[in-house]
């Protein structure tokens, strides 16, 4: 068993930042990650990182924009923390050597981004995430944080109290991909989950193959509720064949969207008369799909994004890698022709419920980054707001776990007197098919932290053994493919009741099939078959929470669009959806949104761009 003060699971932007903060605060910190840190998907972020750095801008404007973008489903304390901390944290990155693009006077460059009232998206070429990730990994090396790379974390070691709020997380169980060894990691002070998004729930996504929502699923099964999972962002400009993202930066710099008839539809069809192409992502995605559905799409599949008028010099300077992406993955030269684009899954606004210090309702369990939901993004994330979230909340979680005092959190976690139960009409039964082997929480009355971890390790060994032992049945790839198809067909940008129910049936089927899953590769060495089989289980759990939340929420807010319910219902729905894994069955409940900020209360307004 490995033992450290703080264990960080995941080494993307959030995980690395958390580890640096915890280590600097004096805690012996280790990172456990299924990919080597520099392989994390944060490296794919292109556009930039929002921070109010300049004269004429301030954190309150940033907070206001974010709240508006969230369609008033973000919690003010989290949003304000983000806006307040971002400038300092971005400048700190600069001091750590991050190669931001520069203005003539030597200051870092900023550009306009969708939904922002000030050009505050700080960028490093069109590869901001790459530089952010590498810069922070460099600091991790510098500070000597121990990194266990290619260790897949499969389960949390949590005590077995009935009420999740009484539970304590003592560590995690890891599986060494290279050797097949299962080992425990005991955390004396805290476990920070930073495992990124669950994009692989869908088949057309900008997310990496490794974005399988493991952290969310693990925390969920350990008793921490998942919040607002129905809010999934679909990015309006992804390449049709692969889902590779064409950054919003292209539109920020002046790129224009055209339909097949060559109309600038954002204006000509009235989707966003003021902001046009730079309207919020949900607005643009829906506009594109409407164009396609109404027969004005190119090849009935996509629309065109044109940046040729920007001129080669400007493109080479600021968007060079977009040219490479279009060329390598779609065979299109962005300098001579418009690029084909369509909406693709991009970001999960929801996640593990945390407060603004990254703490969940389980003692000693933290979450930060895309896998967490503090909630900063509410119903819709603004472009350039995820990277600051990584560093701001990663840092806070790290400090808090290491024992630094960040003050009392204003956001509550877990059930309080303000929460209300929810109900949803599901066509099939939900949750575990056979709850006996599904319960992640250690039972048997383990008391010491060590024994809790040991028990979890044993359980995990058994599970691995079982999977390897089984000789035939279904393979995970089949289940995964069907699940992804069902999700993309039914829980996409446009949602309706029937589709959502179909999806729930498919998810149920996937669960049942999964009972019969087997791993064909008998080897212990680098068994990706086994790893992906475990991940598929996580995808099923996540898909269920997304669909369930979507079915329950009968309104149209932010990224969540319902055919039968075309308006935002503030009276009824200014509340977060929470789903808890209650002894193997999902339990739906709600908690109110916090709109009271430091200096003012945010009044829900119509969101028009």
């Amino acid at each position, binding site marked *: 068993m490995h033992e450290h003060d703080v264990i960080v699971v995941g080494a993307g932007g959030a995980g690395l930042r958390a580890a640096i903060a915890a280590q600097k605060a004096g805690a012996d910190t280790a990172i456990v990650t299924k990919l080597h840190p520099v392989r994390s998907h944060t490296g794919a972020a292109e556009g930039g990182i929002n921070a109010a750095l300049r004269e004429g801008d301030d954190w309150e404007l940033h907070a206001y924009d974010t709240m508006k973008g969230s369609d008033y489903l973000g919690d003010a304390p989290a949003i304000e923390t983000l806006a307040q901390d971002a400038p300092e944290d971005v400048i700190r990155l600069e001091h750590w050597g991050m190669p931001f693009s520069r203005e003539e006077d030597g200051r870092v460059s900023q550009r306009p981004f969708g939904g922002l009232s000030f050009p505050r998206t700080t960028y490093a070429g069109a590869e901001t995430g790459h530089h952010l990730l590498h810069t922070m990994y460099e600091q991790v090396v510098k500070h000597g944080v121990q990194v266990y790379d290619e260790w897949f974390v499969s389960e949390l070691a949590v005590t077995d109290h009935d009420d999740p709020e009484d539970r304590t997380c003592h560590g995690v169980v890891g599986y060494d991909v290279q050797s097949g060894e299962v080992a425990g990691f005991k955390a004396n002070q805290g476990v920070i989950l930073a495992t990124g998004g669950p994009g692989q729930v869908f088949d057309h996504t900008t997310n990496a193959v490794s974005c399988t929502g493991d952290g969310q699923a693990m925390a969920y099964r350990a008793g921490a509720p998942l919040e607002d999972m129905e809010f999934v962002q679909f990015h309006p400009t992804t390449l049709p064949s*692969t889902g590779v993202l064409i950054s919003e930066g292209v539109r920020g710099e002046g790129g224009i969207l055209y339909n097949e008839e060559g109309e600038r539809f954002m204006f000509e069809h009235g989707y966003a008369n003021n902001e046009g192409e730079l309207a919020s992502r949900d607005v643009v995605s829906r506009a594109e799909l409407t164009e396609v559905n109404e027969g004005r799409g190119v090849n009935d599949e996509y629309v065109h994004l044109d940046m040729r008028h920007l001129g080669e010099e400007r493109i080479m300077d600021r968007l060079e890698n977009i040219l490479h992406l279009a060329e*390598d993955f779609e065979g299109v030269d962005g300098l001579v022709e418009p690029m084909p684009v369509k909406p693709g899954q991009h970001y999960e606004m929801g996640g593990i419920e945390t407060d603004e210090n990254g703490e969940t309702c389980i003692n000693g369990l933290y979450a930060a980054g895309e896998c967490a939901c503090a909630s900063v993004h509410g119903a819709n994330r603004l472009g350039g707001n995820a990277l600051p979230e990584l560093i701001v909340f990663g840092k806070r979680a790290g400090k808090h776990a290491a024992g630094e005092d960040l003050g009392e959190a204003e956001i509550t976690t877990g059930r309080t007197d303000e929460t209300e139960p929810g109900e949803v009409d599901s066509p099939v039964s939900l949750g575990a098919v056979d709850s006996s082997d599904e319960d992640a929480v250690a039972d048997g009355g383990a008391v010491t932290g060590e024994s809790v971890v040991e028990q979890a390790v044993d359980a995990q060994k058994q599970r691995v053994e079982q999977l390897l032992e089984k000789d*035939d049945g279904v393979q995970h790839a089949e289940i995964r493919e069907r699940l992804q198809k069902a999700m993309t067909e039914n829980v996409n940008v446009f949602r309706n009741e029937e589709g959502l129910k179909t999806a729930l049936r498919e998810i149920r089927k996937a669960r049942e099939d999964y009972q019969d899953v087997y791993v064909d*590769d008998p080897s212990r060495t680098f068994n990706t078959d086994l790893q992906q089989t475990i991940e598929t289980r996580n995808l099923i759990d996540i898909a269920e929470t997304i669909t369930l939340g979507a079915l329950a929420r009968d309104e149209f807010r932010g990224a969540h669009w319902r055919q039968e319910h075309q308006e935002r219902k503030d009276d009824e729905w200014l509340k977060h959806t929470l789903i808890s894994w209650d002894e193997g069955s999902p339990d739906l409940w709600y908690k109110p949104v916090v709109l009271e900020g430091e200096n003012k209360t945010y009044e829900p307004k119509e969101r028009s761009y």
Partner: protein
Amino acid sequence: MSTQDASAETEDAQTEPSTGSAHQDRRMREKRERQAERDEQAQADAEAAADEEAVQLKVFRYDPEVEGKQEPRFDDFHVPFEKGMTVLDALIYARDHFDSSLTFRHSCRQAVCGSDAFFVNGSQRLGCKTQLVELEEPVRIEPLPHQDVVKDLVVDMDHFYDQMEAVEPYFQEKEEDLPDAEGLEEQRQSPENREKIKMSSRCIWCGACMSSCNIAAGDNEYLGPAAINKAYKFAMDDREGEDLKQHRLNILEQEHGVWRCQTQFSCTNVCPKDIPLTEHIQELKREAVKNNLKFW
């Protein structure tokens, strides 16, 4: 030759993880039998598919634990071709449809994570960034040369990481010198200086360059093109100041540093991020000489 070493090694390898369980042996045996059946099935599928447009892959297979794979071999896969298909797409298809034990690293599918550098038709390339149409058939896919193979296309990257980290790849500024919250000002950097380090900062740690360099293959201690390029990024960044530049040049000037490079250019040829590696290395050699002259 080395194949014998490998099988000798695997003797104890087999007993180690299974802790001598008879069960695992049986399971392995059964798996092997079924494997044979499935191979036939896969072959039949493949032949059916070959009627349509199919691409033939020859993929390097090796697993220290699985009998029949301990001796490295090449497996054939016939993957139905689709427009725009990359080498990585084809591998994923082969894994998901023919043999789930086919093992390779991959993640982002968009040339930023650097996981999937392979040796494809005699050259180091990123699987996700290589279009099949550009390749001659059959497409031969091997793990990166000059690195230990862990399994199939997966190589041990530890040495590469060690070299990358050996050049002190981080800003040296002391954290204590930074004011904590307010008052933290950004440093200025001219757009020209940022432009100078632009290419060097694009490295995704894929290891293709290191694998292609003969010198690195012969001298395990040679820092290698990627690590030198990493150091270049720091040495050339004006924000760090002269003293640190000295320090960085000192690291690079070590016996196994820049002087090892014999300007073979293969690193530059294979780098998927088009980083002018040889140019950077040469520039550092000149810097180092200038630097020494100053001190004479």
